[in-house]
Structures are given as structure tokens and as C-alpha cells.
């Protein structure tokens, strides 16, 4: 009994250290966003702002057309998430449960694309999008990410874990293929869909390089691109602006995570076991 409690104590001590190590930079970021540039560069650094002010935020919001960037980011993220949920689950389902010619090679192709790092295809992809005339447009920001090999793989693995009998039962009862997918299997895939949704949202929300390169006028910028505009200069960095900007980008992500926290953890646990 005593040894067990001691073990717990150790566990909590280690966990506390880990949590502090993970959270401290974020706390410092949020606190730092209220400090003046002079205070941020002080040695030794301060934890709490000496005289908290909203100057950094005021500057950020007055210098940037925030509504536009926020709207762009949201549109892109929502469409990309929706596309991934739909297409990845469809393809994943087909690869897991349906029999059709060329299934194995198709899966091999998906796996192969999964293994090629995105940076390798970055420039060819850009040339492709440019030739399609989609530069500087929302479709140009969305289309390349509408379906990802990782999502397909994730969904396939999940569907493989579901009993095949459900499929046969559905067929015996005379349900159409689409109905079996949409009404029997999709509802069961909740945890996997939640995981895919959150990961895709995060990826899209934080994406920097692609929107930077594709958007050629400021009205097509997304949040991360816009926030990088004025904080990092050629020779100097305005840390106050940078921290305030990072806080603003982080807030919606935090919100999404808090709302879906339980599903997220469930999803990771389930997909991990299977």
C-alpha cells in the first residue's frame, strides 16, 4: 500500500515537471504579448508584465485587415476538413472493405505518396496550380489539400478493424452500397473522423508556406502569413508583436481542442490500438 502510494507520488512529480515544461513557454508567450518591447528584452527577463498594456494587440489589429485574414483561414480550414472527412473516409472504406480490381496497386500508390515528403512535391504542385490558373484564389489554397494519403491510411486502418459481417448483413438486408457506407460504417467511424478532422484542421490552420506562395495579393492571405508580415524584419524582430500574433493564432486552435478534447483522446486511443 505504502509503496504504491510512493509510486504515485513519483509519477505525479514527473508528470508535474513535464506539464510545466510543456506549458511554461505558452504562458510566457501569452504574458509576453502584454509587455513592452523594452521589457521583453530585459535581462533578467520578467514573468509578469510590469505594466500590462494592450499596445501589441492594438498595433496588430490596426495594421492588419484582420477580418479578411481570419475569414480566409476559416474558409480554407473548414473546406479542407470537410473534404478530408468525406474523401478520405470513402477511399479508406473502399480500400478496406470492398473488392475491386486494382485495389492492391491503388493502396500501394496511396502508401507511396504518403512516403514522399510534401516539400519534394511543393514546387511541381505550385507549377501545376499555376498552370491551372488557380494562383491567388481560394481554390488554389484548398484543392491540393482536399484529400491526404495520411487520412486515407488512417481511415482504412480504422475500417479494417470493424467487423466485415456488418457489410454482409447490410447486403443481405438489401441496402445499397452507398447506404451501407453512409448509414452503417460512417457513424461507427466517429473517433477516427474526429482525429482526422482535428489533425487536418491544425495542419490547415498553421499552414504557412503554401498560402504565402499561392496568395499573390494581401486579400488572399491567411492568418499565419499575415501575422508574419510586420513582426519579423530584415534585421530585427519585434517580439511583442510576434507574441501577440502567436497568441491570436493559437486561440481558435485551443478552442477547437477544448470542444473536441474527449473525442480527440478517444480517437487517438482507439486508432492506436487497432
Amino acid at each position: 500500500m505504502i509503496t504504491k502510494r510512493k509510486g504515485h507520488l513519483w509519477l505525479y512529480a514527473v508528470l508535474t515537471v513535464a506539464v510545466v515544461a510543456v506549458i511554461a513557454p505558452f504562458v510566457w508567450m501569452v504574458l509576453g504579448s502584454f509587455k513592452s518591447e523594452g521589457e521583453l528584452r530585459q535581462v533578467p527577463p520578467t514573468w509578469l508584465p510590469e505594466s500590462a498594456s494592450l499596445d501589441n494587440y492594438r498595433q496588430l489589429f490596426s495594421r492588419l485587415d484582420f477580418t479578411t485574414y481570419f475569414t480566409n483561414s476559416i474558409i480554407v480550414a473548414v473546406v479542407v476538413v470537410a473534404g478530408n472527412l468525406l474523401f478520405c473516409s470513402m477511399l479508406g472504406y473502399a480500400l478496406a472493405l470492398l473488392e475491386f480490381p486494382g485495389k492492391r496497386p491503388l493502396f500501394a500508390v496511396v502508401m507511396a505518396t504518403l512516403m514522399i515528403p510534401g516539400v519534394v512535391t511543393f514546387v511541381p504542385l505550385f507549377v501545376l496550380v499555376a498552370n491551372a490558373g488557380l494562383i491567388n484564389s481560394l481554390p488554389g489554397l484548398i484543392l491540393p489539400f482536399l484529400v491526404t494519403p495520411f487520412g486515407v491510411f488512417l481511415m482504412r486502418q480504422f475500417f479494417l478493424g470493424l467487423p466485415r459481417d456488418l457489410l454482409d448483413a447490410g447486403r443481405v438486408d438489401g441496402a445499397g452500397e452507398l447506404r451501407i457506407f453512409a448509414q452503417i460504417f460512417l457513424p461507427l467511424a466517429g473517433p477516427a473522423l474526429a482525429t482526422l478532422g482535428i489533425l487536418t484542421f491544425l495542419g490547415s490552420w498553421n499552414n504557412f508556406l503554401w498560402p504565402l506562395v499561392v496568395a499573390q495579393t494581401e486579400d488572399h492571405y491567411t492568418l499565419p502569413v499575415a501575422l508574419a508580415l510586420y513582426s519579423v524584419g530584415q534585421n530585427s524582430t519585434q517580439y511583442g508583436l510576434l507574441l501577440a500574433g502567436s497568441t491570436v493564432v493559437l486561440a481558435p486552435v485551443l478552442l477547437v481542442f477544448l470542444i473536441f478534447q474527449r473525442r480527440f483522446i478517444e480517437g487517438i486511443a482507439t486508432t492506436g490500438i487497432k
Partner: protein
Amino acid sequence: MKRTSAIVVVTLTTTALALSSCGRDSGAATAATQGKTVSDGKATGSITVWAMGAEGEKLPELAKEFEAANPGVKVNVTAIPWDAAHDKFTTAITANQTPDVAMVGTTWMGEFAGLGALDATPPAIKKDAYFPGAWGTTEVGGTSYGVPWYVETRLVYYRTDLAEKAGITSPPTDWAGLKSMAKAMQDKAGAKWGIGLQAGGTGSWQSVMPFAWSNGAELTKDGGKAYNFNTPEMLEAVKYYQSYFTDGISDKAAPATPTTEPDFVSGKVPMFISGPWEMSAVEKVGGAGFKDKYGVMKMPVKKTSSSFVGGSDLAVFKNTKNRDSAWKFVEWLSKPDVQVKWYKLSTDLPSVKSAWDDPALQQDKKLAEFGKQLETAKAPPSFPTWEQVITSFDTEMEKVTKTGADPAAALKTVQSQAESIGTGQ
């Protein structure tokens, strides 16, 4: 993660371009020193302009005046974050999605011109109007591909009040004087370190080269066709630079991102070498009245006084559909009075010499000092491989300053690496 991917993208872009450019005519080497002429008359049509950071934010205001003077023209400025601007440019060049005019970092000129992306400067633009070091950044393989837009150079910052305490009444002018001043700051004015010098690492060449150039070093040889690191002048400068660390005047263990401003204000490190942006930075940290507690001085003389000239150039892309108007906009931005207006808007220092006669720039003594240094400041050669080669220099300098490695061996290593990489032209 982001950085790594960015680097890979750049490498790939460059490779892709290098491969695809085999079929293109190698215009850079054979073209005349200046490009085609630009038509007379007013600018028309629309011009897209890319500019980074604060420049991109403030340029639209200035561009309105150009539009007013040229009623048929529309200037569309897009602001680009500095963070990954280089990737954006190289990708855009690959896919032929370049703007008409762009602000281009001085050290990128060689690369972009080497890719055949830039239009040669028309003859109406006269090189004598600009600071010679800054104009040099536009020249690639003997051809100019743009104009300097704004400039910056590096000076020695020092605390005037602490210098007085250390018994120094007039700023030193030579190498020995600078070193004894830094030493006196430590001995008599309570400074922990006499002068803050970058202990190697990324960008440290910008602190070392001002000394080397002041000693008459040249970074190219064979008529500007090859790198030239291993020279007696360079060696002497690197030895001098190293002596600050071996004599304990500068901090070997200085962090990569030094706390320059707070250390300067507290007097812990009362001297450092940097560019004009540090003026507002130290004054922000120092608060009211700090303005009168420090001064700037030109690089100390060995054979001459030289420094590093940086800043940004303006270039017109070959792909432009509105070439004449694009160049007219560039020419207009180079007018002395427009340059002064731009300084007032952005605090960017004018690249056009005559703009410095304006009282706005003459009244501020510190600024005027930068103006004087710009006359002799130099830029590195605009070889496409410069960024790659200089990384090896920065690494070797780290060994020299931190572990006391032999400067002669270090320069030999840099030279042999530079030769194996080649100039890329």
C-alpha cells in the same frame, strides 16, 4: 520543421531551375552592361510590386504620389513577410509567376539574376547617383539588374558617458585605439565585456568583413571571377578579430541571439557593431534621455575605414508585361526628393547620395555618420553561391573565436570549400 522544409524547397527550386536553364541562353555572361532603353512619357497600365515587411506596408502611401503624377497608372503593392520571402521568390520564378517590380535583398541578386529572372537596368539610370558599394550589389557578371533602394551599414556603437569614465574623450580612429578603448571600458568603466562582437555563427561575416575591408581585403580575384578568402589582409583582420576573444575583451560564449540592447543600456557591454536599426532599438530599451548617452563612430582605420553595406534593391522581372512603366516607377523611387520622403515614411536610409544633403538627414549627427561610412562601405560579391559559401566562413569563424583555432588554417579551409563550390556563374 518549417525551416527545414523551406530549405529543401529552395534547394529543389534551384536544382529544378538549374536543370531547366540548360536550354536557355546564358544572357548574364554575354549581355551588354546595361539593358534596353525605356520609352519617354508617363507610366501607364498597372504595376504589381512585391515588398517585404514594413516596406510593403508603407510603400502604397508613397505610390499614391506616383499615381498622381502619372494619371493612367495603378500600382498594386503586396506586402510579403520577410520570414520566407526568399522561398516565395524562388517558387514564383520557377512557375513564371513573378511581379513586375520587387524589393530584392542585396544578397539574393546574384541568385535571381543567375536564374535569368531579372531585367537588365536601362541606360537612363546612372550608377554614379548611388553609393558605389550599394550599386555593386546590383551587378552580376558585369551587368546591372536593378538599383539600390535603401541602404544600411555597420558602425561602432559606444556609450559616451561610460567612455568618459574610462578616460576617452575623443573616439578612436584606428585598430589599436578601438581595442584600447574596449579594454578601458572593462578596466575603468565597470563593463563586463569591452565590446560585443559576434562569436562566429550565422551572419558573423558581417562583423568580420568590415575589419577585413578596412585592411584592404578583396573577396574576389582573377578579375572578379573567383572567391578570394585566403589573403594576408584577411588573415590580419581575422587575427585582430580573434584577439578580442583571446584577450578576454569580448565574450566567447555570447549567445547566438545576443541581448545587445539590454546589455548596452546596463553598461555590461558598452560597445558593439551594428546597423542603424539599433538606434531605435536601444532607445526603446533605454527609455527617455538615453539618446544622449551613446554615440556611433565609423569603423576604425587600418588602411582605410570600410564597412558592410546592406539593404535592399529594386528589380524589374523579365516576365513583366509592363516593362517601361515598371522601370519608370523604379526611376521615380530613386529621385533624391522621393528618397527623402521615403526616409521620413519608413526611416530607411537613402541609397542615392544627393538625398543625404537634405537637412532631415544632416541634422541627426548619428545618421550623418552612417552617411559618411556609406561612401566607403562595401558589399560581398553577387555570386549565386554566396549564401552557401559564406556559411562555411561563419562556421570557421566560430572555431576561431570560440576555441582559438588558427586563423590561417580557418581561411585556408574556407578558400578550399569556396573553390569546390565555385562562384556559380
